[in-house]
């Protein structure tokens, strides 16, 4: 059994009633990169990206990142 970091982007977007395109425009991250985050394909996230996402979604890093068990 292993553990992965899950990005709760879908949940936060629903809660904030925001679309991915809107988020992309606010934080200045391409849709492709946001999609990588959303699908859980990202291998790493920069602090600057995390700060920008937290500011745009008005949340804490802990709300965005979640440790999840797999397999």
């Amino acid at each position: 059994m292993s553990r992965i970091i899950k990005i709760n982007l879908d949940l936060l977007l629903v809660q904030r009633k925001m679309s991915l395109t809107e988020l992309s425009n606010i934080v200045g991250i391409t849709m492709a990169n946001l999609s990588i985050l959303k699908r859980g394909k990202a291998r790493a996230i920069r602090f600057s990206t995390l700060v920008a996402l937290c500011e745009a979604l008005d949340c804490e890093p802990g709300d965005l990142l979640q440790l999840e068990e797999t397999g």
Partner: protein
Amino acid sequence: MSTTENRLARIVKRFLDIIWYALIFTAVVWPIAVIIIGLSKPSDPAERHADIDTFLSFKIYSDVSTELATQSENAAGLLIRGKGMVQLNNTPSLLAWYLSGAITEIMGFIFLFGLLQMRRLFASVIKGESFARENAGRIKTIGYVFIGWHIIYPLLQYFGGRIMLNDIGFNVQGIHLHPAFELNVGGIFAGFAIIVLSGVLREAASIHHEQSLTV
């Protein structure tokens, strides 16, 4: 990659493409040409003029019988010895002609395989995918082709030369011919160096992949 480098890569790719298509054409036409020319050669060996370049070692003796010459180098009055491309001309049979054509064809295919990898590599670089994992594999294959070329060619030359000399005779009027074997260690070493460098690119491709998934 800068615009200049990209332009250079395009020029090199175009050059490789020209060589590729020219060689493909040659590879198809070559065996046919060898057979047709072989069949049209005069049956009289004295009029054959086959002009077959073969890598052989040779010893040229002064006015002593060839039989003596083969017994001992010093006693037989050795004048010149060495290794080099020897042009076989009026061979008793056409075996040497066909064999030489076959060796060229085999080496041509090995070269074509290496060239194919080079073309794919440059096509990938032009597309801006220098750090693709496949490129590391291609460079590695080019390294193997390099090593293979520098081992297979001397072996084919040696055994080919042996068969040709069996056909035409080793000793002719004070000239003693041997099949020659010369391994290009530098070429083999360069092949190994290319394989090692492919490993460096694989690492770079892996870092690039990691980087592309960093948001």
